[in-house]
């Protein structure tokens, strides 16, 4: 049998298993918005752990991680440095958000914020920010899935078909089972991709160099600049310390502000589960170690790839691995893509309906769930369109979105901890911070010390939020008491 046929069979089995798990997952959930969006607030530790871990580790980590290590060397270590720092505050903030959500009936991030800062404008602004940040993210996951399938089947299954098959299956299970499908498929996919990453990450350095130590010794002799912080930029020049440091800061601040992660606080059965998920998160962070080892393994074996993100499939196909391993690798990469993509699709549609539509229209529970399903298909279609059309500058959009998403941090912190914060202050801060981030994004030469535009945005955001809050008073309707109560 030809290699690509065997690989396709392995992928087929993997996809069938995923679909089966996804469809089975929804059988216990209630037919309510709470059930579809927040899993009836009944996720246990195992599922919460993998939802958080597998959602964070996307196609970007599986393909982009090795790509960074391969082409930018030590610069990739920033990705190792921010995860635990970013998740640690969630140990206290997550349970608090969950308690408030349970009490006031929230299922999204914007609902959480407008409970404290009542404003339909704020709700819509957050919905727009979230959707604008999530769509390019979904697109990248879809393209990642398509790229992997195309590469390992020698082009017999082109990118558009690969992406369509993988995400057709995601659509089916998310539409049928909502967030419980995301939970259980992520558990399966998470176990799968971690195993694959460790096996390949340890195997490739041995196969190519005789071990991890010998690999780095050889790289050190021939490409020492790759192993020295702060690493290189995409063009091969030295990266700056300002760029490296602010990438860590903005990613740590933004991590839990991503709507698809933040909203999972509302799915946990109890607060202890959120806390334990945080405690276990570093184990998922270590999964980046083999991913980087794979990238470094390519340094002396593969001449400069035009697209470094292809380093993993490239190595896999050129190292003469058993064909079944190639298939399993491919399924692992698909796991990484789909386990993030499903959560993103689900979050995008939930946010669009709950925060963008519902403040203006009184919908029944059934109508809301129907509308969320329609939006899932719409978001999927729009992303698919971008994924298969070349030339759309997605990386540009995605990089901007991190800077914008991080702007949600000051409102969340103010909602929970600052008595004097007002709706006007939060709105003004969000607009000023977001505007500043965009300004520096489009004029990178203006950036001070090469700092990330999101960080520069926060430097404007926070003073504006504080100043405007001090000069305005809160409108009626704020549930400030619930947010600031230490016992809640």
């Amino acid at each position: 049998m030809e290699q690509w046929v065997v690989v396709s069979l392995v992928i087929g089995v993997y996809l069938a298993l995923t679909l089966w798990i996804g469809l089975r997952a929804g059988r216990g959930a209630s037919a309510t918005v709470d059930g579809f969006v927040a899993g009836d607030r009944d996720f246990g530790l195992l599922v919460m752990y993998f939802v958080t871990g597998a959602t964070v580790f996307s196609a970007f980590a599986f393909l982009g991680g090795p790509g960074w290590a391969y082409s930018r060397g030590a610069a990739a270590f920033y990705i190792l440095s921010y995860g635990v720092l970013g998740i640690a505050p969630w140990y206290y903030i997550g349970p608090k958000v969950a308690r408030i959500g349970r009490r006031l009936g929230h299922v999204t991030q914007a609902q959480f914020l407008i409970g404290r800062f009542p404003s339909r404008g704020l709700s819509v602004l957050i919905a727009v920010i979230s959707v604008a940040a999530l769509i390019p993210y979904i697109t990248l996951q879809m393209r990642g899935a398509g790229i992997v399938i195309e590469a390992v089947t020698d082009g017999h299954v082109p990118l558009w078909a690969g992406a369509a098959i993988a995400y057709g299956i995601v659509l089916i299970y998310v539409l049928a089972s909502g967030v419980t499908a995301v939970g259980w498929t992520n558990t399966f996919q998470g176990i799968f991709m971690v195993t694959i990453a460790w096996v390949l990450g340890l195997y490739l350095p041995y196969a190519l160099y005789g071990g991890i130590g010998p690999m780095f010794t050889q790289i050190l002799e021939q490409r020492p600049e790759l192993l020295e912080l702060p690493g290189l930029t995409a063009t091969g020049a030295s990266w700056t310390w300002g760029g490296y440091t602010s990438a860590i800061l903005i990613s740590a601040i933004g991590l839990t502000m991503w709507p698809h992660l933040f909203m999972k606080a509302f799915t946990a059965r109890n607060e202890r589960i959120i806390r334990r998920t945080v405690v276990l998160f570093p184990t998922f962070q270590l999964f980046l170690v083999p991913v980087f080892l794979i990238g470094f393994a390519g340094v002396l074996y593969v001449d400069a790839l035009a697209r470094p993100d292809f380093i993993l499939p490239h190595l896999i196909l050129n190292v003469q691995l058993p064909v079944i391993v190639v298939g399993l690798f491919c399924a692992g990469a698909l796991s990484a893509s789909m386990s993030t993509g499903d959560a993103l699709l689900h979050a995008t549609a939930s946010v669009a309906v709950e925060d963008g539509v519902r403040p203006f229209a009184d919908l029944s529970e059934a109508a809301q769930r129907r509308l969320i399903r329609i939006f899932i298909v719409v978001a999927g279609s729009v992303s698919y369109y971008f994924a298969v059309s070349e030339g759309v500058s997605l990386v540009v959009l995605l990089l901007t979105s991190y800077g914008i998403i991080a702007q949600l941090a000051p409102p969340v912190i103010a909602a929970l901890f600052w008595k004097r914060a007002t709706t006007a202050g939060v709105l003004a801060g969000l607009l000023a911070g977001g505007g500043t981030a965009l300004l520096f994004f489009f004029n990178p030469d203006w950036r001070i010390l090469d700092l990330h535009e999101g960080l520069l945005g926060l430097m404007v955001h926070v003073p504006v939020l504080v100043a405007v809050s001090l000069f305005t008073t809160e409108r009626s309707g704020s549930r400030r008491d619930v947010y600031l109560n230490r016992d809640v």
Partner: protein
Amino acid sequence: MDIKTVRRIVGVFFILYLLGVIWPVVSLVGGPQPLVFGLPLAFAWSIGWIILGAVALALLEWAESRHERRSSGGEC
């Protein structure tokens, strides 16, 4: 040790963690050598902090759970 002290220690640890992985501290360990367990120093440094972070969070959870049991039950 009472729970407030534990929280404070863990808080201070995470501030040190932050300072340890950003400029200027990280520039002191940013060179490739020596290899630690076969890994470049900067790589091993980042991994070391993750492991310490995991330990700190585990200790915090252990202390918080014990605190909860004591304040809710009172008998143990």
